[in-house]
Each structure stands twice: as C-alpha cells, then as structure tokens.
C-alpha cells in the first residue's frame, strides 16, 4: 500500500468517527436535553381524553322545589371539524339536516359559525365554545328524527344524536325568576384560560367542552353546581384504535344549590309587579287621573332578620327555557334590545334610580345624628326658598302648611321639612366653601345605611348607586367640564334644543364642582344626583325594621351534595349597624308604621287588616327629567314584629301609593294568609307566614322531600325524582314532562 492510500485511510477513519460523533451529539440533545418535551408530545400522541360532562346540580327554592333541574333529551349535535373536511365544507349536510330537523338553514348556519368569524352573529347565537367540540343544534328532537339521522350516518357525517342532560325549568307555580337564575353557555377560550390560571393547568376542572353559568345564580355558584367532569384517558394507536384505558375518573354530579327563594312567593311577586305596571298604565286605578307609560319594574321580598331574598322580580322578564336548545338570533336580539326593555337585566340589582322620598329615612337619621330635634316642630310650607337667593323648591306630594314633627313629615312625605333640615346641615358643614374634610351629615348617614356601594348580594353585576358628595361632585364636574362649558358645540342637537339643559349647563360650568345649596337640599329627598338600586333601598329598610343591623342580602341558603349532605351553609351576615341611635331607629319605625294608617298611603289600606298585620311603609315618587315619575313603595311587616321587607319600584309608574302600594299589599296578603280583614295563617303561602328556618331534605338517592304544595304540574306528594343522580328516574321524569308539553 502506498503512503497516499495509508493517509487517505486515516482521513477516512477520521470521517467515519466524526459521523458517529455527530449522531451521538444529536441523540444527546434529543434524548437527554429535550427528552421531557418529546415525552410530553408522545403522551399527547397516544392518549385521547374522553370527557363525560358532569350532570349540573339543581337549584332549589327554600322548601326544595326545583327552580332549575335537568332532564334528558335527545340532542342533535354537529362536529364542525368533520364538516370542514368535506369538499363543500359540509354545506350539503347542513342543508339536509335543516330539512330533517325542520330548522331554517340560516339558523343552523348561524349556530355552527364560530363567534368572531366574519359574518358571525352575536354570542350566544354563534358558537362560543371550542371549535373541536360538537355543537348542539337541536334539543328535544323526536326519536324518529334522531333515528333518521343516526341510521343514515353516511349521509350525515359529523352529525350525532345522543341522550344528553339539559337544563329544565319546571317553574313551580309558574315562577320564572329568569334573571335570578341566569343561564349556561359554552365556556369561551378566555374563560378557560382564566380558570386554568386560577386552578392551574393540571388541576383545572374546566375543559373546553364545558358549559358554564352566565348571569344569575348559575354564574355565581358555577363552582358548586358544575360538578366534576368524568375523564377517561384512553391509549390509542396511530390509527386511533383504542388499545386500553390509562386512567379513568367518573363524573361527579354537581351539588344542589338551596336558595332562600320561595317559588310561590316569587310567582306572586312576579304577578304583582306586572299588575302594578298595568295599574300604572290605567288612569284611576293608579290613584291619578292619567295613564303612566310604565313598562318596567322591580320587586323584592327579603327576610328582615337575615337579609335572605325570598323573591326578586324584574320586569320585563323572559322564559328561562329559551336558552335550552340554543337561542335564536331574533330571540337574543329581543332579550338584549332596549325596545323590548332589556329582559336580561335584573333591575332589582342593576337598575339605578332616584330613590326619592324613600330616602327620607336617611334625612331623618342624618338630622338626628346632627343633633336636630325629632319632634320639631318643623314647618311644612308649600315651597322652600334657599335663603339669600331666589332658588325655590316645592313640595310634591304633601301640600299643607302646618307645623309638624319629623315623624309626621315622613308620614305625609313633606319635602319642604327635609329641604329645610338639609339646608341647615349644609350650612353647618360649611356650605359651599366647606373643604374636603368637612362633615357630611346626610351622605355619611346614607353610606352607613348601605347607599352608594354594592350591598354584596350573591348575584353578578350589582350596581352601586350614587351618593353625590363633595368629592364626587368635583370629579364629575371635571369629567363633564367640556360638555357644560362648550354646550353649544358638543351637546347633541336634541340637548341643544332644550333650554333647561342649556341653563343647567351654564350654571354647572361656573360652579358645578361645588356642592351648592340646591344640590344639598335635593339630596335630602333622594333627588338631584342621588341614585339607588331597589335592592339598596330594601337593604336599608330591612336594617331599620330589625332595629339597626344591616344584613348582606343573600339568595343562596346552602349547598347540598348529590347525596343530601350539607356542603356549605350560608349563614346570615351582619354587615354593621346603621349610624343612628336605637331611639332614632324606633322613632323612624313608628313614623313608617303610621304611613299606611294616617300618612301618604293610608287611602290604600281601607280594606287591609292593619290591626292584625300592621305594615310600615314609605312612598316615593321620583322626579326624572323628561320622564314620568318613578313609583316607589318600600315597606316591611308586621310593623310590630317585622319579618319581611317588601319593596316595589315602577319607573314611569306614577306615585308610590297609587301604583306600587296595592301590589305590595297583595304580596303581604299572600305571605300572611290575609283574607278580607281576617288573617288565616293556614292560607299563608309560606308556612304560617314565617320565614323558612330549615333546609329541605335531599335523600341519599337524590330525591327531594317536597312540601305538599310543590307547585309542580302533575307531580306526586312524595317528591319528584331528581334528574341528576338516578338515570332511570330522570328519564321517567323527562318522559313525563314531554308528555305534558305538547
């Protein structure tokens, strides 16, 4: 061999071993450095998770009547990814399905469009869930239709029909409680990410196949109601064949949510709210000789000693069953349209209105706290003139000129007495030039009674109302300076045509940041810039009624496990004492008790047994610029041993006594079993007219012991089968319901 060959062989040797080294290096990187990543990819590769959704818990009223439960239904769902693999993106399949299901093609198409895609409808009409999850397009499908779809599988790729648990609203007594209950919808990507961030990706019980609560109790107590989805981790081979089960976790059904709502009271309140609105629309009936254009309203019944909500209605409402099976575009448009009155909004907690004369309890307590005599005497003049100016404020409801105590001023709702007191407190505070640290008698008392901040009720999107104190005024003026001072340039044409608005703007431009005498005076009667939600007013009246303790309003009573064990008991939560002495509270109580006897609402009690069930109440008639007055009626009863606060509010409804008071009285009649001038506790729709103290019994098999008057169509006395633990029973229940609804 030549030297050259020998050298070349050495070179070859070096080359060969560098090839080997290159392989070794790459293997080191892949298997040692990045091994974990590839392992994760491998397990993702071979493990398919099959998620069995947990049956969502039922929501019960205080006596165990189901407000929301489940039933099984034949649901047809469409798998988008399968459709998109077809040459025409599955258009033919959707058209065929539309014929078989008898659903318009456009509606199906909308339901199958991902939210955010070009031309997609608004959620929840469009599909807001995972693009890989089968989209339910029709529920309660007749069995023969479902069979058609299933038997012609090759004609309907990606379409499946399955028995699925869906929400069911049995509406005991016909109570809807739509906004209170809320609804459920597919989890959005953002919500899923948020849930994972909170619970950790591994520990998260949310999957992108989940339905989550939206609005109302379904949203707030989602964590208790949703249960835990069952997960089966299946090992699959490359062809997708299942080769074994790696891990399995059965679905845990959701818990029962027991509320303090009484379905029967709820129904009465819903009906009476509607009646009040109708009354407002009817001249004469409403205590006035004109019709008021009322279209909306809210009403609340709360337990005085606990803050528990027994009923809460907001009108207009809707049938909660509308969500089942997917809401259509038109339906959703109606639900969220201004014209239809925004039925999705719970006005009891989200609506903000001038509390008007119901706010006089605040004025009275503030005056007492500021050291003014409760007994007066105070002059109830026709009008109040701000000393040293020409600004006058008139009396709306009571037009009498006499000296009176503060109690009498509350009874007859004399504005001028409160104007005068408010002015004196205002001057004492330092008037217009008071610094930021000046005392604020009225506003501090209002804050102490829970106004100006959310009450903390266990419902979403509660509004805080508004207390226009000096700080707020400064802030508000800065935010609106441009509008006030450049009114003729920036205001809308309609506003510019309004001379009153122009005058106000001109005034505000100059000194709108100051708490002027007029602002202080108007605030004392719950006008001006004061806003409150109906719940805040009921909250405050409840505190006066029970002697001065503010309880956090609460709808949930307890969470029960599917086997009936108490998981969580929501105890009444005292938030604090009202900023008034016991004497003052009692004084106000007495004054309120006289309103139906000899005050502004007395004419509504001629056929009411006040001697047996004394009612304490306050009327309110709120002035709203450009609109008819808001009717308020805040009350509690029995006045000598208060059990319930009942409040009703009807915007553009006329006067408090004329429109709302009769409906509130009807609610009391039902609550206490009042017949004519007699009281028959046996006829009370809550047992003996007392708040429910015990929790309903959920048996280990998931059945509920129901009261005799369960308000459910066709159900037996022994209790209805709960849909979520016993499959057989729930199917039976489902059949029964289908038979009843043609």
């Amino acid at each position: 061999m030549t030297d050259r060959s020998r050298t070349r062989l050495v070179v070859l040797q070096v080359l060969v071993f560098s090839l080997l080294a290159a392989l070794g290096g790459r293997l080191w990187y892949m298997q040692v450095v990045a091994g974990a990543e590839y392992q994760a990819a491998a397990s993702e590769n071979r493990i398919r998770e099959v998620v069995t959704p947990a049956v969502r818990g039922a929501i019960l009223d205080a006596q165990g009547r189901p407000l929301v439960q489940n039933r099984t239904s034949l649901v047809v769902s469409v798998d988008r990814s399968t459709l998109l693999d077809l040459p025409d993106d599955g258009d033919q399949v959707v058209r065929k399905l539309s014929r078989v299901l008898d659903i318009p093609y456009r509606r199906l198409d909308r339901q199958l469009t991902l939210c955010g895609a070009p031309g997609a409808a608004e959620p929840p009409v469009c599909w807001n869930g995972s693009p890989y999850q089968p989209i339910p397009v029709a529920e309660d499908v007749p069995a023969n239709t479902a069979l058609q779809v299933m038997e012609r599988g090759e004609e309907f790729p990606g379409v499946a029909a399955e028995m699925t648990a869906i929400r069911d609203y049995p509406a005991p007594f016909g109570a809807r409680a739509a906004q209170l209950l809320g609804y459920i919808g597919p989890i959005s990507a953002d919500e899923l990410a948020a849930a994972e961030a909170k619970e950790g990706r591994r520990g998260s019980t949310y999957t992108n196949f989940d339905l989550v609560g939206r609005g109302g109790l379904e949203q707030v107590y989602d964590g208790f109601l949703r249960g835990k989805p069952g997960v089966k981790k299946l090992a699959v081979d490359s062809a997708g064949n299942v080769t074994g089960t790696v891990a399995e976790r059965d679905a845990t059904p959701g818990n029962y949510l027991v509320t303090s709502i009484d379905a029967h009271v709820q129904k009465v309140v819903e009906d009476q709210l509607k009646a009040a609105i109708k009354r407002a629309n009817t001249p004469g009936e409403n205590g006035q000789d004109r019709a008021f254009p009322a279209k909306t309203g809210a009403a609340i019944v709360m337990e005085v000693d606990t803050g528990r909500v027994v009923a809460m209605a907001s009108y207009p409402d809707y049938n909660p069953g509308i969500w089942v099976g997917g809401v259509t575009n038109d339906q959703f448009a109606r639900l969220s349209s201004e014209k239809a009155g925004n039925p999705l909004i719970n006005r009891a907690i989200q609506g903000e209105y001038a509390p008007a004369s119901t706010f006089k309890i605040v004025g009275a307590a503030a005056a007492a706290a500021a050291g003014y005599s409760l007994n007066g005497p105070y002059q109830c003049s026709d009008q109040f003139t701000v000393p040293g100016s020409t600004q006058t404020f008139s009396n709306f409801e009571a037009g009498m000129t006499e000296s009176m105590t503060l109690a009498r001023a509350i009874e007859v709702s004399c504005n001028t007495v409160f104007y005068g007191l408010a002015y004196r407190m205002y001057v004492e505070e330092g008037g217009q030039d008071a610094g930021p640290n000046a005392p604020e008698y009225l506003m501090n008392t209002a804050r102490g009674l829970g106004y100006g901040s959310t009450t903390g009720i266990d419902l979403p999107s509660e509004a805080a109302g508004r207390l226009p104190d000096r700080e707020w005024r400064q802030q508000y003026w800065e935010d609106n300076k441009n509008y006030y001072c450049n009114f003729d340039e920036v205001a809308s044409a309609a506003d510019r045509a309004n001379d009153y608005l122009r005058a106000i703007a001109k005034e505000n431009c100059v000194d709108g940041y100051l708490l002027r005498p007029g602002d202080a005076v108007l605030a004392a009667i719950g006008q001006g810039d004061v806003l409150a939600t109906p719940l805040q007013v009921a909250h405050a009246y409840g505190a006066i009624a029970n002697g001065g303790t503010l309880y956090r309003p609460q709808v949930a009573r307890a969470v029960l496990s599917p086997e009936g064990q108490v998981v969580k008991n929501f105890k009444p939560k005292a938030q604090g004492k009202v900023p008034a002495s016991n004497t003052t509270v009692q004084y106000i109580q007495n004054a309120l008790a006289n309103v139906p006897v000899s005050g502004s609402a007395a004419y509504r009690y001629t056929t009411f047994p006040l001697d047996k069930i004394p009612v304490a109440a306050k009327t309110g008639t709120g002035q709203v610029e450009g609109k008819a007055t808001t009717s308020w009626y805040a009350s509690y009863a029995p006045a000598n041993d208060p059990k319930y606060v009942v409040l009703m509010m009807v915007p553009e409804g006329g006067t408090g006594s004329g429109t709302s008071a009769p409906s509130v009285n009807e609610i009391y009649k039902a609550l206490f079993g009042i017949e004519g001038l007699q009281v028959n506790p046996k006829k009370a729709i809550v047992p003996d007219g007392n708040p429910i103290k015990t929790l309903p019994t959920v048996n280990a098999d998931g059945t509920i012991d129901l009261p005799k008057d369960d308000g459910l169509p066709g159900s037996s006395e022994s209790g209805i089968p709960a849909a979520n633990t016993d499959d057989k029973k729930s199917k039976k229940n489902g059949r029964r319901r289908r038979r009843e609804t043609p």
Partner: protein
Amino acid sequence: MTLGYPQTVLSPRRRRGSLRARAMGRDSILRRFDWVLFIAALGLSVAGAVFVYSATRVVPAGEDPQAYFKRHLLNLMIGLLLGFATMLFDYRTLRAYAPFVYIASVIGLVAVLVVGTEINGAQAWIQLPGGFTIQPSEFMKVALAVGLAMLLAERRDGETEPQLPDVAFALLIAAVPIGLVMLQPDLGTAVVMGMIVLGILAVAGTRISWLVALLVLGVVGAFIAVQVGVLDQYQIDRLLAFANPDLDPQGVGYNTNQARITVGAGSIFGAGLFHGTQTAGGFVPEQQTDFIYTVVAEEMGFVGSIGIIALFAVVLWRALRIAVRAEDLFGTLMATGIVCWFAFQMFQNIGMVIGIMPVTGVPLPFVSYGGTSMFANWMAIGLLENVHLRRALR
C-alpha cells in the same frame, strides 16, 4: 512473503496437525478469525431481531406476533451461511468471478425495473414465490465493492496512482448500477453506492483534484436534475421535509415528526424493552425496517441508542483495521468500500430518524428487518473476514 501469495490457512499442509493444534495454532482459522468484528456484527443482528420483534409484536388477533422475529432470525441464519461461504474461498480468486457477480447484479437491477414490485414509491424489489422478496440493489453494493477494488488495484509497474483510463472505466462500471438504482427511484441506495465509489477511488490514491471534480460533478448533476425537472416537486419536498416537516405533513413530514417524538421520548434510559408506547401504537411507519432505530431509541433510551452506535463503531473500527492491514491493495480497497458502505448507510439511516438527514429509504445494516439487506451485510462481513484471514502473519 514478497513473492506470490502468503500461505493460506486452508493450505493442505496445515491440515495435518492435531485437531487441537489446528484449532489453536497461531495461524489457525479460529485464532486468525476476527472475533471482535464478528461478535459486534452478530450483536447488531441479534439486537435487530429483538427490536424487530418489539416493532411487530402488536398484530391483529389470529396473526403470529413473532412472524417478523422468526423471519429476521431466519434471514440472519442465511446471512451467516452466506457470509461463511464468502469467507471460505480465497478472496483473490474473487477477481475471476467479479465480472460475473457484477453482471448478475446489473441484470437483477434491470429485472427489478421490469418485473419489480413497488414499495414506498421505489420499484426495488422482486417478488419471489413463497412471500419472499429480493432487492438486487443490496447485492449490487457487494458487487461494487469487489468490482471497483479489482479494477483499481491493478497497477502497471511504477504507477502509484490510478490513471485516467482506470478511473474512467471504474466510473463507467459504477455509473450503470447507480443509474439503474436512481431509476427505481431509490436515491438513498444510489448515494450509498456513490460513497462506496468515492471511498475506493480516494483510498486507491486517485488525485485529489479528480476527486474534487467528481464531487462537484455530483453536486452539479443533482442541481441540474432539480432544475430541469427530472424530479417532481413532491419529490423535492420529500427530500427537504426532514428540515421542514410542514412541506409534506401527511407523508415524510409526519414520519419525521413521529420519529423525532419517539426518539426524544426515550430519554436517558428509555421506556424499557417492549414498553415503548409510540412503538406499540405504531406511530412511526416502517418502524421494523427503515425506522427500526426509533424502537431502539424509545425503548432503550440514550444508553441503548449509543450502545447500537458503539457496536457500529466496533464494526467500522475492525473493518478499517482490516483495510489497513490487508495483504494487498485489492483487500484494502474492498474493505474500504465496505467501510464506506456501512458507515454512510448507518449515518444516513440514523440521521434520517433523528432529523439531520433527508428521508431516503435505506435500512440500518444488520438491525433493520429485510432479507436481502441481511444477506448482503453478512456477505460483506464474510469478505472482511476473508481479507483478514489471508493477511500475512507478522
């Protein structure tokens, strides 16, 4: 030792001693045999049997889970016999047979184009009765190593390097089978053959400038092939998919992705023999043949993967040692050809599995399932042992 051939172990004189002496004598066949090379190659083949079993043991009910395993062992037996036979007769007499081996292989390659069966896009197999297939291109590698070594080992007096006519003739001899293999098309095998040619030419002492020219010619040729459109776009994509699996997501891209996942998932110690989930699930297509290394990597981890490479290192080290120590240039060049063949084919195969080489279907020598490949590999070992046995004792 300078004149004629050294005495061979099989010379009649040596046969007279006692059995023990014959077996244990300093130049007995048992002592001159390169046991290290043999054991390393046998180790690879047996490991191959185990991994082939692991890759194919998941079968539909009713089928024999050991079918591939048994046939791999049968192939190994036949391979060992062929290798033994190749070792027995003096490799120098091969020169006489070399033209026939070459021509027979070329005929095989022509036949495969006419009556061959297409598997995975390459028409490289001839179907035999009884379910056996034969892949002539594997034998062609043996023929090339022998044939080129024979051509380039012939030197006229005083010549220290191959002359132009020799090189040109050698290239012509190589071009025919390479061209036929490219027609199948089996690019991987063609490149391996090219490497055998290049290696033998280089060690034969061919001028550097010619070797460089040859390389440039190869690259330009490949470039022209792509430009002129001899290759379809999908073929180019398949070639490039190793770097960018998205180019061919359903085909090669899928394969490379899954192969990488499987290799990486093996981590340091592997999932354990027969415990690889990727392997059991059959996520990597061709995991018993071209992608057998994924099974090694997943089930035996980095340790086992390096173990296989170490066995190859031993084989290549011994083969290079044989090339260096060969009695004559012919032996050296033949061993060089086999080194280039094994080294490049192994690199090409494992490199493709771990994503540093394009996906071209060449089996992993000894380890991959495949009869012809096994036969050819063991014939190559037989040739190496042959050269080893017949070197002069020093």
